[in-house]
């Protein structure tokens, strides 16, 4: 995982390095003297070769420093760490809600295959994977805040103000996991070992929920893991819609201010979070599927 994260930082750092604009001019304003500009440049370390800059950056990361913001002149971590809790809280909450709702919905759709319920769930899921998050957010806001006035439209620190952003952010994952769960459940239900279970007298209910569900949940976990990136990427738009002071919002603001170190800091944080979630997904696999567990144990022995 660590090499991947470092490669990710390298990539992000490389792309952002190509960003046009002189940070020093931004920081000091128009009336700075050439000497002062040169001095500041050296202090920021942007006169060094790219690889040296990168190496220094990674070195500093391990001590918790994300570099100096070109906008505030202070360490990036200051504002980044202030924003992180919002994003973590929101994303994990959204993921939790999505998973808790999508698995039963997918199972229901598969068990009642070709019924009205199945069609409703399928249509709902199709909308979920097709609708842009920011639009869903706007529509929910129109309905619940401006229309019925039951929920606040912007973040105000109360639990109520989490409801709409959570639903919005989790909607896409909810939909894709539902779709996956439905199709994998359909597949597993026609597997030979389900027939074996039925043949030894296992009831329909137990065949579905004991024998099939645990097998069918594996692809859903994969999709949830893969979709976490999309989910957290959606934060950028959602935090804008609902005015939440999270990492996504910080990133957009920093881009507009050409505050490259802060942008990089945000990207690094998000990538690390995605990698951590994917690691957890791998561990979850091993918990559910003994075949994968055996592979891990074998690999561990070496």
């Amino acid at each position, binding site marked *: 995982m660590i090499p*991947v*994260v470092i*490669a*990710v930082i390298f*990539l*992000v750092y490389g*792309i*952002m390095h*190509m*960003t*046009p604009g002189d940070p020093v001019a931004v920081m000091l304003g128009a009336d700075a003297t050439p000497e002062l500009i040169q001095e500041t440049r050296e202090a920021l370390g942007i006169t060094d070769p790219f690889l040296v800059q990168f190496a220094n950056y990674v070195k500093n990361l391990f001590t918790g420093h994300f570099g100096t913001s070109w906008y505030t002149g202070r360490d990036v971590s200051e504002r980044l760490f202030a924003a992180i809790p919002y994003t973590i809280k929101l994303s994990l909450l959204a993921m939790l809600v999505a998973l808790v709702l999508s698995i039963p919905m997918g199972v229901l759709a598969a068990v009642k295959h070709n019924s009205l319920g199945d069609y409703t769930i399928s249509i709902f899921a*199709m*909308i979920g*994977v*097709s*609708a*842009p*998050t*920011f*639009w869903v957010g*706007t*529509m929910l806001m*129109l309905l619940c805040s*401006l229309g019925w006035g039951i929920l606040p439209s912007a973040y105000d620190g109360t639990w109520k103000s989490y409801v709409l952003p959570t639903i919005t952010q989790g909607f896409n994952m909810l939909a894709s996991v539902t779709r996956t769960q439905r199709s994998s459940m359909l597949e597993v239900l026609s597997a030979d070992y389900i027939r074996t279970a039925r043949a030894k007298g296992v009831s329909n209910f137990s065949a579905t929920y004991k024998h099939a569900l645990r097998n069918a949940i594996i692809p859903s976990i994969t999709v949830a893991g*893969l979709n976490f*990136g*999309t989910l*957290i*990427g*959606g934060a*950028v*738009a959602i935090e*804008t819609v609902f005015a939440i002071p999270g990492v996504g919002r910080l*990133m*957009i603001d920093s*881009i*507009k201010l050409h505050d490259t170190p802060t*942008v990089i800091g945000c*990207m690094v944080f*998000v*990538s690390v979070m*995605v*990698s951590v979630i*994917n690691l957890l997904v791998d561990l979850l696999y091993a918990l559910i599927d003994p075949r994968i567990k055996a592979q891990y144990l074998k690999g561990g022995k070496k």
Partner: protein
Amino acid sequence: MNAANTRKIPKKKSQAYEIWRRFKKNKTAMAALIVLSLIILSTLCADFIWDYQKDACSINIKNRLQHPSWEHPLGTDELGRDMLCRLVYGARASLTVGILGTSFALLVGGTLGAIGGYYGGKLDNLIMRCTDVLLAIPGLLLCIAIMSAFKSNVFYISLSLGISYISKFTRIVRSSILSVRDQEYVEAARAIGASDFSIITKHVLMNCMAPIFVQYALAIGSRILSVSTLSYIGMGIQAPTPDWGNMLSGARAFIRGNTYLVMGPGVALLLTISSFNLIGDGLRDAMDPRLKK
């Protein structure tokens, strides 16, 4: 024996025909295909109805925020431009970058996946590690990073949309090549002395097309979704060029009392993207041989 017998050799019914026959039976997928065709047709005909510069881009404050009427079926926006006209031109922008971006991703990702899948070994390993890195960065954020480094024009937008989707195509092409590569008919082709080139093109790639085709349709939907988000946060297609994302963004301040402003572009996005998704799903079902029974 009987030479006078008129020989009747049935015409070939290709797999593509079979797939189309089964696709046609899928009502939702056919509906999606029709909707999508209408959207594409409307963007093609737009120039016969409107003047792009005058109707879609120039500001007409007098007319601003008019609710839907006969004259303006979807109303006018905050700068007095006809929503329907901008919606149709917006489709042009979204579809163009969506298709360009997906094609770019397919070209690069597909080539990498094909190389990795067919030859395997260290090269394959290297390619797979690179896709791991790309996959660790959320696609949208990668687009944003790229867009913050480059100018917002159709080329760079497509490029950024494409780059963020490369790894998915690499994986899909690679896995479908892997599944085909070990099929006996590929071995059979080698056994009759076919060249590497002919094996890859005629036997391997031809049989990998199905899942790639499905993914292509789904990817266009996803790319349009991304570009609308990019435009919404101001990093994609820039005003005054109309795009569904920046139309929604512009409407943000005025939605109170003017709900129609978000309905048009939103529904257009939903329809277009779900059409691509439904077509992708339909293709997948039509190509699934298990359904034949």
